[in-house]
């Protein structure tokens, strides 16, 4: 009998404790929801993130949160930890919570169509952020132009290396549109120069994998002048792989995360194609607010990229 009372009491206490702590952490307005009805008629917008284990999406969330605070809407954030099945579940939870709009940052382009359709059946418009969803119409898609970004990185390397040299490419999670488009923009542009991608392998947008994959590829290819990583996390892994090696290799990343920008300033990375995740988050919330106010929105909103180098 003790066991059951303990377990039940513990679960109940934890729940109570967390619903008071959690909101304080993310949004001051969420506390009132924990008590019951949606906060005093404030519109509630749901944000389904792919993962918070990547500073990029944390910045996106921060941008969204700031915009939500200043627009006077409540933001409820759910995190899929990069698992599409978990993301479908959390989108369903947002539908059950009857949020006004769902901002969806999909874990994957192919798996979320069903979840988007269920939201639409419940008359909740969906806006996709950063990655698109195949097989479902959304109210708006807000993302950086990844193909243009890949091309930017290739042009930068062509200029730095006078159009000659061998390149290693670290790819993102296979199947994501970001990995596909950045790779395509980069590879197509490289093909027009005298440079060559001598090795390419996925390191899944992850710093630790970026390190080990770079070590392996550098071991197998001694004559390399540049590494292009499809995000900054992998680029920073590559920087570590190069540390201690007496070799001049240009590392170019993508995203412009705080760590990435710092590495560019310190000269460890040659450049990063900076996205503006806060801007994506901000535009997401503002576009959602327009939908709440029954205004029309653009089907596709491109967030500009910029190449950051050491000045």
């Amino acid at each position: 009998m003790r066991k059951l009372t303990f377990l039940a009491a513990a679960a109940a206490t934890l729940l109570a404790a967390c619903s008071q702590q959690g909101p304080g952490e993310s949004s001051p307005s969420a506390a009132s929801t924990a008590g019951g009805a949606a906060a005093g008629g404030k519109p509630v917008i749901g944000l389904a993130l792919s993962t918070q284990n990547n500073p990029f999406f944390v910045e996106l969330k921060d941008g969204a949160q700031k915009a939500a605070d200043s627009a006077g809407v409540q933001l409820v954030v759910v995190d899929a930890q990069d698992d599409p099945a978990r993301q479908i579940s959390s989108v369903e939870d947002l539908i059950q919570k009857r949020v006004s709009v769902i901002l969806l940052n999909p874990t994957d382009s192919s798996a979320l169509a069903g979840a988007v359709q269920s939201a639409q059946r419940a008359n909740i418009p969906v806006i996709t952020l950063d990655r698109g969803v195949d097989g479902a119409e959304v109210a708006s898609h807000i993302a950086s132009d990844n193909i243009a970004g890949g091309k930017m990185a290739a042009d930068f390397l062509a200029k730095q290396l006078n159009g000659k040299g061998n390149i290693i490419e670290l790819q993102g999670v296979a199947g994501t549109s970001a990995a596909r488009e950045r790779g395509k923009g980069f590879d197509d542009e490289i093909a027009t120069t005298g440079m060559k991608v001598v090795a390419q392998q996925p390191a899944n947008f992850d710093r630790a994998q970026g390190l080990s994959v770079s070590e392996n590829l550098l071991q197998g290819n001694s004559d390399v002048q540049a590494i292009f990583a499809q995000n900054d996390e992998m680029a920073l892994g590559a920087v570590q792989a190069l540390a201690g090696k007496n070799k001049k290799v240009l590392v170019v990343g993508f995203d412009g995360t705080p760590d990435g920008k710092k590495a560019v300033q310190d000269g460890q990375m040659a450049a990063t194609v900076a996205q503006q995740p806060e801007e994506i988050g901000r535009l997401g919330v503002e576009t959602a607010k327009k939908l709440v106010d029954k205004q029309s929105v653009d089907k596709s909103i491109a967030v500009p990229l910029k190449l950051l180098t050491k000045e």
Partner: protein
Amino acid sequence: MTLQMNWSRASTLLQRLGSVIGLVLLFIVLSVMSPDFLTTGNLLTVLRQVSINALIAFGMTFVILAGGIDLSVGAILAFTGAITAGLMASGHGMVLSVGAGLGLGLILGMVNGVLVSWGKVAPFIATLGTLTLLRGLTLSYTQGSPIPVTNQGFALVGGGYVANLVPLPVIWMFIAFIVCGFLLRGTVFGRHVVAIGGNEEAARLSGVRIAPMKVAIYGLSGLLSAFAGIVLTSRLYSAQATAGQGYELDAIAAVVLGGTSLAGGRGWLFGTLIGALLIGFLNNGLNLLGVSSFYQQVVKGIVILIAVLLDRRQ
């Protein structure tokens, strides 16, 4: 002897009630705290979310009851899901593809059983090996990209409804629950599973054929994982190369929360269902309450730790 039986029955009963009352309390707390919780739509949604984990956890219950562990369930799910979707993508019919996926899951599970029984490899290591192996095979088969599902009939397996209300995965979960429950309680097979987990040497001496039993137990776990993989693939409209990562831990958590002892020999299938529901309602409730996802993991971790600690005190 009779007295002892009665006593052990009474104590198991008490222990078993724990998870049920835990669930009921959680249910009440969530109903009070969130106005969106206690609706038919939300409850059915949670049941559907739980179904994948429950299917895997049912198989895991047999393995853990027999004193083993199966870490390869998530990898079997991903591999069989990919093969099923791949067969359909290359023009094979739905029945054949699903049959092949289920058959493959059964065989992969039996391989685990052979490694554990005849190979005398510790279950933790054997299934860790097959986990890694199958993850690699899945990645090379899919080339890392999702395999889309175009077969409309197959899309219903995980996405369809009965009477326009009850999601099909929920029906699969209950059918699997009844079948597995019967296997465990109503057959010699089930009694032998518990006997092996209680005391393997004693079971062997009283005539239980340990090795074939283990092959069958891990085979059942593989079969149910494959079934979960097929339902998930249908639900996602695609087979994901990285599907099911960490699902072994969710399944083990459901089994343990349900009051089945990790040491084997003691436990019940109904508890596993309750354990899976506990995890599902906790996930759902924390999302409805808008709790930061960082704290959500903390809460789940603490709940599991408490359950295991209480299990040790018994």
